[in-house]
């Protein structure tokens, strides 16, 4: 059995995450909102990987749990308090209950049937949130904070203002330190650090699951269910447990999204969001520990930069090209950026599935091997 140096991995991971506002500064991604998204979708992807990466059960329905988490959190903000702790707890619990119900039914089937079922459930949840359960979800408009919400634990905020989410008085949005470092203006805010700590915790939990007998059973399910059953293991409770765990991670991510911005809408439950987390995990590296986080950061970063590029920016880039070629190149590149960045994402995704089934993590390992081979030859 391979020796893992888990303590070291965890330490390096924690340092990287906690120093993200500094490390990401040169990339232009170091503003709190985006970094917080990295962390939140990282949590979502880590959880999803426990299901898809370990057991091989491909769910398209995890957006539903993300949405449930958001709705639950906003309800806590409305009824109880703006402190994020009860909101996050309820988000995780509700997502857990939902995933138990959906998982119990969907996991009666495996393979493609399971995928189709989760897809149908995702669409059903979306429709429920959008119209059927309007009293709970406020339908199209989405669930928002209102001035007349009870918030029984909180003191009334100043007349006519909405309170903001906080962690025992520390406001999520507040930037508590704003130094200049090597010419970059850095922003440290509470919201990011709450998400970052939960990301590290999620990473630790995932790591323990990966190394545990439970995780070994999940991997065995992916490899050979027949043998597992004839070995005396009933695979369904294991897959259900993995499904619920990943659903709870999704709920946590949904709750955290609500702490960033206390509103929840049905579009968060659309199965395309569930498709996005599939992309993150596959792109990063299915069944690896760090891959899903890499995939989440990669996709959210790509979204951030590509969607900002417009025609003018492109013309600026390609201005050096002579005459009509400039227009030609701009016309070719334009559909892939700005509002069309999903095209880049789809194309990238296909390339990864076709040529690099191991994802980015596997790809970088292969490149590393290649370089080592070249270096050896030259030595």
């Amino acid at each position, binding site marked *: 059995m391979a020796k893992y140096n888990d303590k070291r991995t965890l330490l390096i991971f924690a340092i990287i995450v906690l120093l993200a506002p500094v490390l990401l500064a040169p990339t232009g991604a170091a503003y709190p909102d985006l970094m917080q998204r990295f962390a939140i979708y990282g949590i979502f992807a880590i959880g999803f990987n426990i299901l*898809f990466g370990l057991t*091989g059960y*491909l769910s398209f329905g995890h957006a539903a749990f993300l949405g449930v988490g958001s709705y639950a959190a906003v309800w806590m903000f409305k009824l109880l308090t703006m402190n994020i702790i009860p909101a996050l707890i309820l988000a995780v619990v509700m997502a857990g209950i939902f995933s138990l119900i959906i998982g119990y*039914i969907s996991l*009666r*089937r*495996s*393979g*493609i*049937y399971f*995928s*189709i*079922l989760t*897809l*149908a*459930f995702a*669409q*059903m949840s979306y*429709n*429920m949130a*959008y*119209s*059927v359960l*309007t009293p709970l979800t406020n339908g199209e408009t989405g669930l928002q904070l209102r001035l007349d919400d009870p918030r029984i634990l909180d003191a009334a905020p100043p007349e006519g203002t909405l309170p903001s989410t906080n962690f025992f008085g520390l406001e999520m949005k507040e930037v508590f330190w704003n130094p200049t470092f090597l010419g970059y203006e850095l922003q440290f805010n509470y919201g990011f650090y709450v998400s970052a700590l939960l990301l590290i915790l999620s990473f630790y939990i995932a790591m323990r699951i990966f190394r545990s007998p439970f995780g070994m059973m999940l991997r065995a399910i992916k490899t050979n269910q027949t043998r597992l059953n004839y070995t005396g293991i009933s695979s369904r409770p294991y897959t259900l447990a993995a499904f619920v765990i990943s659903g709870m991670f999704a709920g946590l991510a949904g709750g955290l999204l609500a702490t960033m911005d206390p509103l929840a809408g049905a579009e968060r439950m659309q*199965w*395309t969001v569930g*498709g996005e987390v*599939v992309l993150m995990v*596959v792109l990063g590296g299915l069944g690896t520990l760090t891959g899903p986080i890499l995939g989440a950061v990669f996709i959210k970063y790509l979204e951030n930069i590509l969607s900002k590029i417009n025609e003018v920016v492109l013309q600026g880039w390609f201005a050096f090209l002579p005459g009509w070629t400039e227009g030609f190149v701009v016309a070719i590149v334009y*559909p892939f950026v700005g*509002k*069309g960045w*999903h*095209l880049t*994402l*789809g*194309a990238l*995704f*296909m390339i990864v*599935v*076709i040529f690099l*089934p191991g994802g980015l993590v596997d790809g970088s390992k292969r490149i590393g091997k290649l370089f080592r081979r070249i270096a050896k030859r030259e030595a």
Partner: protein
Amino acid sequence: MDALLLQFINGLDKGSAYALIALGLTLIFGTLGVVNFAHGALFMLGAFCAVTFSKILSIAQITIDPTKTDFLGNPLKVKTPYIEVWFGDFGTALLDWSVPLSIAMAIPVMILIGITMERGLIKHFYNRPHADQILVTFGLAIVIQEIIKAFFGANPIPQAAPQAFFGSMDIGVMIGFAQDTIIYPYWRLIYFAFSVSIIAGVFAFLRFTTFGMVVRAGMADRETVGLLGINIDRRFTIMFGVAAAVAGLAGVMYTPINPPNYQMGMDFLVLSFVVVVVGGMGSLPGAVLAGFLLGVLESFASMPEIKNFFAGVGLPAIDQIIIYLVAVIVLLVRPRGLLGKAGIMED
């Protein structure tokens, strides 16, 4: 009674679309063993064949009419489609009939797209895990969708049915009800008839031609048919083309009912999967039956009486989720689906 009947026929056109897409999905699943997440995109591509066709037909000559001015006071530019310039009234008629006529373009285009898809991509995934097949077709669906968005924009593009089919038919009067109780737009009626004939065509093709016989044999037992020295792969490729064409035609004819936009494929895909599951994975008659059943059921669920009843028990807008609820119940009670073979989905 008349209200029930009205809902019944109202469900038929949506049911037709479900049935056609589910039929294609089942053909591909049955022959190639692949679940094609890009099948909704084929439906959408069909719809955009109609859009393209009418755009081509309405390419216009711009002339300046010096006698009139526009609201800014400039001479008025008049657009006259070339086709009218060249053919006069016949050209106008062609434009009017652009949706049905675009079938002529959609069939070869869709078959070509289907065959290219199978040979260029899906073929390489037969021996990969199911999850990979789903992922790659899912990626393909996104790409197709985004390309269409890049070319045609994100907004729905309305397409008109030929003027001859504007208006509705009063079916109620024909079968002895009061006037205006059961009226049904002509085009929906045509859509229904068109779908039924395509379905009948596909079944006849599979039943009565040697080609169809081999394909059916291949669906039952691919290896054995391959051993008989029959080039089953090529036939399956053609079947993929046919399935693409069926989805495409469903899309073409649906454009006057629902203005096409780049996302319509995904919406229909999810529902069609449900249809396939309810009908029985791999069963062609099951797919058709379940398509119509669920379309009609959805229509019934949207009746005010039924909606109000469910709103009373805390479920307003039951029509939005009825299909999914039925699918869950079918799956729990009869996992193989309505007409599925024993053993399928029952492990």
